[in-house]
C-alpha cells in the first residue's frame, strides 16, 4: 500500500522536455571543451595547504596547515548536523510515518540495526551507534566527490610544473594546456574529498580498533587480553600450548594490520576513484565521465557499508568469550 501511495506522489520524469535539456548540456560541454580544453590536474597524495602559514605549531604534531580536506570535513559535519535537526523535527511532529530525509534515514538505520542484532545479539545496542555513525559519515564524505565543483574550483598557485592561464570572465581564470611561457600556475581546489586524506581514514580506523578493545574488555572483563597473551594451556599441553601462545601473538599483530587495512582500503578506493575521474575527464571531456560517476556512486556506498560492517563484526567478535570452546556463547 505504501508503494502505491509513493507512486502517486512521485513526479513523473518529463522525458519530452528533459531530453532537450540533456541535449543542451551535451552540446554546451562539447563547445566549452573545444574552447577551454581540459588540463590534467596535478595529483598529489597529501592534502593541499590552503593557508600560507601553519595554523597550529605543536612539538608533538609538527606544523598543522589548514588543508582543503578540512573544508570538506566541515561541510560533512554541517550536513550531519542538518540531518540531526531534520530527524529531530520529524520525531517531534508526532507523525508515525516520517517522510523525506528522516524517512530514508529511518529505513537505513533499521537495516543497520537488524544486521547488528543478528550478528551481535544482546550487545547490539552498544555496537549499533558506531556502525551507524561510521557508515553515515563515510557515505556523505565519499559522495561529495560526485558534486561538480569539488576538486576543480580553487585558487591559482604558482608552480614549476604549471600551465599557462587564461581569463574566461572578469576575475575568473582557468588553466590552459601546454607549456607556460613565463610563470606556470596550478589550481589548488577549495574542497577536496576528505577520504582522499590518509589522516581521516587512519583516525577512523584508530577509533574503530580502539573501541573494539574497550567493548571487548567491557564484555569479557580482563580475560579479554587472554586472546593476545594466552599462557593458560602453556604448561598443560606441551606442543599445543605453544601453538596457542603463538596464535595469540598473531592476533595481536592482526589488530595492527586491521588499522592498516581499514585506512588503506577506504583511502585507496576513493583516491583511485578521484584520480580515475580526473583522467577520464581529461581524455574524454564529453559524456564519458557520467558513466564513471555512476561507478563511483556505488564504490562510495559499498566502502561506507564495508567500513561500518567490518567495525561491527570485529566488535561482535570481541564480545564473545575466547579462551573456552565449550559453546556457551552460541
Amino acid at each position, binding site marked *: 500500500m505504501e508503494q502505491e501511495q509513493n507512486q502517486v506522489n512521485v513526479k513523473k520524469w518529463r522525458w519530452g522536455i528533459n531530453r532537450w535539456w540533456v541535449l543542451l548540456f551535451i552540446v554546451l560541454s562539447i563547445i566549452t571543451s573545444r574552447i577551454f580544453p581540459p588540463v590534467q590536474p596535478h*595529483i*598529489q*597524495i597529501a592534502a593541499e595547504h590552503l593557508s600560507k602559514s601553519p595554523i597550529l605549531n605543536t612539538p608533538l604534531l609538527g606544523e598543522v596547515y589548514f588543508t582543503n580536506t578540512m573544508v570538506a570535513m566541515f561541510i560533512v559535519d554541517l550536513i550531519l548536523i542538518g540531518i540531526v535537526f531534520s530527524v529531530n523535527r520529524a520525531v517531534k511532529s508526532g507523525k508515525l510515518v516520517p517522510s523525506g530525509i528522516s524517512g530514508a534515514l529511518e529505513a537505513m538505520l533499521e537495516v543497520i540495526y537488524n*544486521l547488528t542484532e*543478528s*550478528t551481535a545479539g544482546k550487545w547490539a545496542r552498544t555496537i549499533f551507534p558506531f556502525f551507524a555513525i561510521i557508515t553515515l559519515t563515510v557515505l556523505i564524505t565519499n559522495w561529495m566527490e560526485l558534486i561538480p565543483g569539488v576538486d576543480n574550483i580553487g585558487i591559482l598557485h604558482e608552480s614549476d610544473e604549471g600551465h599557462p592561464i587564461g581569463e574566461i570572465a572578469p576575475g575568473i581564470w582557468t588553466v590552459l594546456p601546454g607549456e607556460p611561457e613565463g610563470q606556470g600556475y596550478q589550481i589548488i581546489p577549495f574542497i577536496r574529498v576528505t577520504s582522499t586524506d590518509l589522516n581521516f581514514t587512519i583516525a577512523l580506523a584508530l577509533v574503530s580498533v580502539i573501541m573494539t578493545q574497550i567493548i571487548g574488555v567491557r564484555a569479557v572483563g580482563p580475560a579479554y587480553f587472554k586472546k593476545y597473551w594466552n599462557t593458560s594451556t602453556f604448561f598443560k599441553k606441551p606442543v599445543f600450548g605453544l601453538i596457542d601462545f603463538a596464535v595469540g601473538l598473531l592476533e595481536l599483530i592482526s589488530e595492527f594490520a586491521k588499522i592498516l*587495512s581499514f585506512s*588503506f*582500503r577506504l*583511502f*585507496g*578506493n576513493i*583516491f*583511485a576513484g578521484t*584520480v580515475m575521474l580526473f583522467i577520464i575527464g581529461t581524455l574524454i571531456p564529453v559524456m564519458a565521465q557520467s558513466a564513471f560517476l555512476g561507478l563511483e556512486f556505488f564504490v562510495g556506498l*559499498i566502502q561506507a*557499508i*564495508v567500513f561500518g*560492517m*567490518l567495525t561491527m*563484526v570485529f566488535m561482535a567478535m570481541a564480545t564473545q568469550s575466547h579462551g573456552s570452546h565449550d559453546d556457551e556463547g552460541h
Partner: protein
Amino acid sequence: MEGDIVAAAKLIGAGLAMIGTIGAGAGVGIVVNGAVQGMARNPDASGTVLTNMILGIAFAEAIAIYCLVVALLILFVF
C-alpha cells in the same frame, strides 16, 4: 624528457606493483563462486550469505588496494 630513466622506472614499477591484484581477483572470484552456490542451494540463507560474502570480498579486495596504494605512492610521491 628524453632519457629520463627515473620517470620510466617509476611507470614500470607502478605497473609491476599492480601484478598483485591477480591474487585478489582470483580470491573475489572464489568467494562469489562459493556464495552463489550456497545461495542457490539454500535460498533462505541468502541474507547471511550475502553479508558474509561482502565481508570476504572486502578482505580479498584489501590486498588489491594495498597494491594500488603502493602504485599510487610510486607514481605521485617518490
